């Protein structure tokens, strides 16, 4: 089984090397003359006026947590889809109940307007 993942390992190694090569080549080949102006933060032409560590709106958090919940739901769907033929009708009903409970939550967030972006 592990042999099947050899491609992914080779891919990882190649991706790592491709990521590493431009940095190494850049530091070896390019001239480096840092200066005060060059090292200062650059923000789209105007002076940087605020720290990046500012407070974000809490609604980003809401979007992220709703995403996690439905992401978990998807994770349950994968093994179910693989063994659905062996489970038969019982497996189908089990997943319908599972998704039905979550659809209640989905309707709730839709009706509350949690998916609206004002």
């Amino acid at each position, binding site marked *: *089984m*592990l042999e099947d*993942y050899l491609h992914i*390992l080779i891919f990882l190694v190649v991706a790592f090397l491709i990521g590493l090569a431009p940095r190494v080549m850049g530091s070896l080949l390019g001239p480096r003359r840092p200066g005060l102006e060059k090292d200062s933060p650059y923000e789209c032409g105007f002076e940087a006026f605020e720290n990046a*560590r*500012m*407070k*974000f709106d*809490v*609604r*980003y*958090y*809401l979007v*992220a*947590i*709703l*995403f*996690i*919940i439905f*992401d*978990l*739901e*998807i*994770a*349950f769907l*994968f*093994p*179910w889809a*693989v*063994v659905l033929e*062996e*489970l038969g009708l*019982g*497996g189908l009903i*089990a997943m319908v*109940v*599972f*998704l039905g*409970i*979550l659809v*209640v*939550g*989905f309707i*709730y*967030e839709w009706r*509350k*307007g*949690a998916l*609206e972006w*004002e």
Partner: protein
Amino acid sequence: MGFEKFLFYVFAAIAVFAAGMVVTRRNPVHAVLYLVLAFVSSAALWLLIEAEFLGIVLVLVYVGAVMVLFLFVVMMLDIEVAALRAQFIRHLPLGLVIAAVMIINMVLVVGPWNFGLDSFAKPVPQPEGYSNTTVLGLDLFRTYLYQFEIAAVVLLVAIVAAIRLTLRRRANTKHQEPSEQVRVRKGPERIRLVAMRAEAVPASVPRIGSGPGADPNDAKEQGE
């Protein structure tokens, strides 16, 4: 076995290195990114013990979703690093005591005498065509079906709680309702353009060049 052992040491070393960086970085965003690296290398370790479904779910759920949430929280917290470091020495003794207790706990539980080949037999490699996902699916939907449905209820509670806690309606934000916009019917609900003749300018009003206001073709009246 040689190559697998080598891979295990590589990924384990990356995981330990990343975990060390998580607790030593000053910038919390960097710490979270190192935590992502630790999760990814743990997923590789899980693949090595042939728990392929769990390894991929670790990447999908933890790296893909939970770490995004971590990043949001870290960015939202507005952490003043200098203020945190000022308190470091003051809380150091208490922190050391707690750390010592935790280390003793962990050594008692996962110490080397609890492991080794005499406590746990070497796992036999699974036969050709073995699918971790299939075995897990059969277990989940036959033996643990009830717990699986309970998981749905727990997720439902999480949805409702997250919305109740964080959904704030802001007064006077301007936004469009596309569903109402497309439902507008022709007739009284729409703007009506009326063509009309230019009116003669009374002699008492001084003429101001040919500015946009003085253009007689602009004189369109709005319906209603």
